[in-house]
């Protein structure tokens, strides 16, 4: 359940940003969840509710933007979408695939009032 701690960090980041702008309330958090970020959506949503309590983000919406996993092969240079974590290139078979996207959990933007 690292999702609770990650949700708290996301809310902290959001509150910092809102305070910088002198906003009094956060109405939404736009969160990018990579397919290989190792984060369960349901657990994140559950942790999010708890994390928002008694903060500027109380009652905020969680907008999840799902980012598909991508890889690029350092042997044949092919880029591909990945269904699961692997280092084997689906095109040339080399164990040379580098994850090039969809492995992050990040706060893209917030909506404030």
């Amino acid at each position, binding site marked *: *359940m*690292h999702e609770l*701690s*990650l949700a708290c*960090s*996301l809310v*902290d*980041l*959001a509150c910092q*940003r*809102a305070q910088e*702008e002198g*906003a009094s309330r956060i*109405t*939404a958090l736009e*969160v990018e969840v990579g397919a290989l970020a*190792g984060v369960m959506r349901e657990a994140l949503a559950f942790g999010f509710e708890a994390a928002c309590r008694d903060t500027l983000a109380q009652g905020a919406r969680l907008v999840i933007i799902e980012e598909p996993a991508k890889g690029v092969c350092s042997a044949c240079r092919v880029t591909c979408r990945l269904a699961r*974590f*692997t*280092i*084997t290139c689906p095109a040339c078979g080399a*164990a040379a695939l580098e994850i090039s996207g969809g492995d*992050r*959990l*990040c*706060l*893209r*933007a*917030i*909506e*404030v*009032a």
Partner: protein
Amino acid sequence: MCTDCGCHPHHPDDTPHTGDPGDGYASRRLLVEAAATAANDETARHNREAFRRQRLTALNLMSSPGAGKTSILERTIRHLAGRRPVYVIEGDQQTRNDAERIERAGATAVQINTGSGCHLEAGMVARAVERLDPLPGGLLFIENVGNLVCPAMFDLGEQAKVVIISVTEGDDKPEKYPYMFRAARLCLINKTDLLPYVDFDPGRCRQLARAVNPHITCIELSARTGEGFDAWLQWLSGLA
């Protein structure tokens, strides 16, 4: 009022337009673009820098509950007695049991109880190191909470992550928990004294570990008999 979409107040350069004319004051969108672990990563950078200044070699030990982290540390500490100062940060949800075992083995320990928390974070390590006040040239082992998932995602500022798997857990663990094996530089395969009693193929385990992380080193050992400890101690001395 913004001329592009009619919202209010003006957009700072990095703020996209909400496209929400009528009700300008209602909401504004602010870009953030920060990783969820940003604050932890920053503290981990400070830790890493402090470890470098103190010439402290720090290792983050992770495994499922009961794979033998503390047992491996106890034997390691006895081997290193009189050669190198050893410090241990023990992460467990509850109890001081592991810190007490470490102290009996002869090293200085600080116990962190995470309560419901399933992993250590860099800030906890920073505070624990302050309490340890280590001598230069020392070796710091951070025993993470028993868990093969969450600890892999939190940098503590360590020099290397070590994953420990015991032969009673099944040789396909690297395939089931790729993040952990991808993050680790070393994989210790523990409890080899039990190999005659279980269906565990160390060769297959190594192969699956390398399939998610071609750079990983694997060492088989037994904290009970001491078999394989030479290779582990050699790996340790090669680090610093």
